[in-house]
């Protein structure tokens, strides 16, 4: 164990963990974050705070993570390579750690043209694997340039993996690269295609990667068949099984069906060897999280160390 992250402690203890995710507000609204914290406190073990997700401007993930701490929720600060160069990324890590943030999720970031400033310049100074390596180096007391620092952070380092995108063999190879660079936990894209996920997790187990990093499988409650169709058509690298489309289409109450599918998925993932937890991504539907965790039989959550 390297950090004071509660998430890490639970994973080390062998608990099946539950993460949530919230989008910071598109405005200077701290109260919005505190309100969303009410849906997550004592319901999940840690919550992702996204970093300008889908390249749409929102409150910074650093400050949102700090507000989440105030709201009694352990944050997982997302940090992308799209908007900041290696200097800014390292200074954000230092600041966030000093403020009490203990988990960081390193991502490349969605391309600018998907968001609301398609005319922006993308930075992409580092890629996500290099960013993971950078944070791992900082944990050991070194900046990326090799210079040493007096008071290093001790972050629990995460990254992403997409089991559903092509080419399959590179997905496994890149996961290994990230682990070698210092990644300790992985969050995946939402699972809507079990045959593909099972194939991926088997390959992960065969390589032994599930013992080197904790695999947290993504799940997403959806409100309508439209949301699934949108993901299938417009989110590259996503795979949706026809079964779910049919179920959502023929459901009398699509919202209820969405919850049912999500709960079923979590229960199945819990039984899947190699999976150490789930990451619930209720996009714009954070309020449903407590119900999903409860119906999945994952409440109460193990008592954690209080977020500092």
């Amino acid at each position: 164990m390297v950090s004071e992250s509660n998430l890490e402690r639970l994973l080390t203890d062998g608990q099946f963990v539950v993460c949530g995710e919230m989008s910071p507000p598109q405005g200077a609204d701290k109260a919005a974050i505190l309100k969303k914290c009410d849906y997550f406190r004592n319901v999940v073990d840690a919550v992702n705070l996204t970093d300008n997700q889908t390249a749409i401007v929102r409150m910074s993930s650093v400050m949102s993570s700090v507000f989440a701490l105030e709201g009694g929720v352990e944050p997982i600060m997302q940090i992308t390579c799209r908007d900041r160069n290696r200097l800014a990324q390292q200074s954000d890590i230092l600041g966030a750690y000093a403020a009490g943030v203990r988990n960081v999720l390193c991502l490349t970031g969605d391309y600018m043209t998907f968001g609301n400033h398609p005319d922006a310049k993308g930075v992409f100074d580092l890629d996500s694997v290099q960013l993971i390596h950078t944070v791992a180096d900082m944990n050991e007391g070194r900046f990326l340039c090799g210079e040493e620092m007096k008071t290093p952070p001790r972050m629990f380092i995460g990254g992403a993996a997409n089991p559903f995108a092509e080419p399959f063999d590179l997905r496994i190879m890149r996961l290994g690269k990230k682990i070698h660079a210092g990644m300790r936990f992985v969050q995946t894209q939402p699972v809507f295609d079990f045959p593909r996920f099972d194939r991926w997790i088997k390959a992960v187990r065969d390589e032994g990667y599930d013992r080197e990093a904790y695999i947290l499988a993504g799940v997403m409650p959806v409100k309508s068949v439209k949301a699934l169709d949108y993901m299938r058509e417009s989110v590259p690298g996503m795979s949706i099984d026809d079964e779910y489309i049919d179920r959502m289409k023929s459901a009398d109450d699509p919202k209820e069906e969405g919850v049912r599918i999500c709960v079923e998925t979590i229960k199945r993932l819990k039984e899947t060897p190699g999976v150490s937890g789930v990451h619930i991504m209720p996009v714009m539907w954070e309020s449903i999280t407590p119900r999903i965790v409860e119906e999945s039989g994952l409440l109460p959550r193990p008592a954690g160390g209080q977020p500092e």
Partner: protein
Amino acid sequence: MSKLTEGLAGFVLKHPALHKCALLAENIIKKPVFRCQDCGQCVLSYNGYTCPMRCPKQIRNGPCGGTRANGHCEVYPERKCIWWLINERSKKLGMQGKLRKYHIPVDRRLEHTSAWMNVFAGKILPISLHRDLTKKELGELKEK
């Protein structure tokens, strides 16, 4: 690399006219054949002779999570994902093992300079993780 080639390459890099000639010679091949993006620190030989800097996100440790089911790029749906191409060509050339290699961040000072001269002048760092480097190599890294 011998002291002589190192000195020669260093000399070329210091003199704009010579450097221009070296760049021209390099680009005549690399631009049309590999669509070289001029990063000045070539990794073609690791990646099935396909340049990862052509990726819109310039990911040297790719691919990103957005490769489409048909192997196309998430940003430019009409193009193939560079990493999809890298994988295909590496397989054909029997070089897939090289894809496991970790690539250090790009040295932005070397952009638009001759990668060949940079290699001869010893300006390219070993491609590995800091913690895998020896103390001496780390020191050299700091100096550069």
